[in-house]
């Protein structure tokens, strides 16, 4: 039993998952399933960004979908209107995400809790209105069509679903690896300290503003690059990309998987993506299920799948400890168990 639970959080498990992801296209029933999986990976990259600012750092950013849209629109505008190639435009999308993230972060992160959430909600809305109204730049409500697909190199042709799948998988692996490096470093512990109590963190000498802005900019870069990939595969985008619904989809992925955990974003994204596949015709109304599901999750299951697993394992370990200390139930008032603060990440 222990061997199993330990394996689930070991690096061998992560390699196994990567192996499964690599062979997936060969066992998938058809091209459509590969495409769905690739799109799920794109969203997962954006959710990893949200996980840094909301999961580790504890700031609910409701403009995340807006930054996703900024990345997508950067690629679309540069490739369609200015005849750039995809990869330079992709880089530019990352820079745009960082610059906008820095500006918004500098203003918004001076605000506490509720103010920050309200402010970012407004920022998301401003992005949406600008995309819709600034027709000269964004083609307005028509959206932008014929976005260039990523140029291939050598044997790769990213206009093909299979090749694109591997491209996105590569980016996702980098995103996960980077998140792991961050969360195990002093920086990640700094972010968590800010989430648990920013006053205490400040009294330890942590520069709150600098660290929060850093987390925010990292998260917006993730979001913008995910948006850039999205633009490259869908090749048509409209103002709807900046809708609050997308931000909320991402919050749902994050909560189901486990907020503030390493594997939570990918677990949540894959589960919900595939669960909603049979809701195809229902897509527009998905919030009828998502809305109550989220409410139930935050009330009864705030740690998500991965977080709950880690908490359960930590409780077991505490019970089995040679010194029968008082079992320490992980307090439900925390969105992340202590267990994830050690080296053994799920």
């Amino acid at each position: 039993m222990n061997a199993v639970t330990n394996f689930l959080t070991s690096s061998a498990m992560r390699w196994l998952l990567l192996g499964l992801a690599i062979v997936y296209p060969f066992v998938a029933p058809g091209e459509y399933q590969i495409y769905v999986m690739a799109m799920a990976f794109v969203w997962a990259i954006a959710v990893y960004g949200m996980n840094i600012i909301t999961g580790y750092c504890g700031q609910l950013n409701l403009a995340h979908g807006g930054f996703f849209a900024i990345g997508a629109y950067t690629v679309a505008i540069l490739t369609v209107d200015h005849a750039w190639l995809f990869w330079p435009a992709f880089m530019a999308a990352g820079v745009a995400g960082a610059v906008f993230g820095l500006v918004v972060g500098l203003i918004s992160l001076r605000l506490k809790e509720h103010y920050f959430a309200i402010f970012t909600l407004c920022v998301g809305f401003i992005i949406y209105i600008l995309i819709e109204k600034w027709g000269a730049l964004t083609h307005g409500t028509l959206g932008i069509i014929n976005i260039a697909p990523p140029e291939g190199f050598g044997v790769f042709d990213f206009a093909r679903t299979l090749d694109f799948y591997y491209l996105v998988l590569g980016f996702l692996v980098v995103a996960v690896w980077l998140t792991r490096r961050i969360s195990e470093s002093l920086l990640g512990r700094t972010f968590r300290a800010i989430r648990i109590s920013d006053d205490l963190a400040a009294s330890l000498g942590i520069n709150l503003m600098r660290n929060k802005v850093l987390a925010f900019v990292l998260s917006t870069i993730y979001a913008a690059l995910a948006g850039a990939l999205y633009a490259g595969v869908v090749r048509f985008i409209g103002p709807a990309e900046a809708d609050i619904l997308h931000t909320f989809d991402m919050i749902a992925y994050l909560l189901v998987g486990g907020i503030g955990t390493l594997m939570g974003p990918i677990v949540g994204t894959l589960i919900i993506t595939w669960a909603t596949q049979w809701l195809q015709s229902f897509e527009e109304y998905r919030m009828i299920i998502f809305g109550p599901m989220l409410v139930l999750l935050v009330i009864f299951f705030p740690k998500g799948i991965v977080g709950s697993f880690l908490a359960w394992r930590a409780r077991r370990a505490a019970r089995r400890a040679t010194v029968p200390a008082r079992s320490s139930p992980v307090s439900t008032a925390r969105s992340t168990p202590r267990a994830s603060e050690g080296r053994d990440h799920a």
Partner: protein
Amino acid sequence: MELFLQQVLNGLTLGSIYGLVALGLTLVYGILHVPNFAHGALYMIGAYVAYFAMVDIGLNYWVAMVVAAAVVAMVSVVCERLVFHPLRNAPPIHDKIAAIGILLFFEAVVQMVWGADFRRLPTPYTEIFHFAGLTLPAQRLLIIVGAFSLMAGLHLYLKKTMTGSTIIAMAQNREGAFLVGIDANRVAMMTFAIAGALAAIAATLFAPINLVYPAMGNLVLLKAFVIIILGGMGSIPGAIIGGLIIGFSEALGGFYLSNDYKDLIAFGLLVAILSIKPTGLFTRGVR
């Protein structure tokens, strides 16, 4: 000059509607310290209930308004009982997520049941008065008079009745309110009911000159948030004054600057205010 006065009138109309919505938000915030993102959905439901009460059942405008207020007050209380009450000790992120969950849920339900098309709420007051070169549509006058009487009524209720006093007491000092035997659950339910009713009445007043559609609450909600940040979270006069400020700046800005971007004016103000003073104007103590 006449054009300017016309815009002032429009500003007064907008401001009184925003003020009503912001009042509900600020009351709930003052008591529970929850920014209720679901408030926009209550506004939207109010408009739909009034619409169907008038169009399908054929009720009179005022009766429909009362029905909408009652239904939405109930919905609001149910949300409080089922969602906000269980989350009262959860980390602050959780109730915000839950509130947005409620908002999107209601929007999706309404869209599924009644479609996303725009509807117009009929109003019995279609006369247009002309006075000193100004055009005064009856509905706009009704909005201004109705909203301000309601605000005055709320003020009297909070100041002169026992239940109103318990709400104020709880907003001022939770522990103190408990010590003198105020029932927190009852006050929370009352507050949510009042907030819901205010939102529904605002929607019923405003819908005849605006439209009824599933996402109608979102912009109003965001502006109401801007208003309560402007006027101070939990402050009732602040909500009314803030509402007028946003209403006027939107009417005048939409007319003199750009009609396309008039919705951004409120947010521009918000960014400016919070950049200069991160605690919002008129707030005391800690952030």
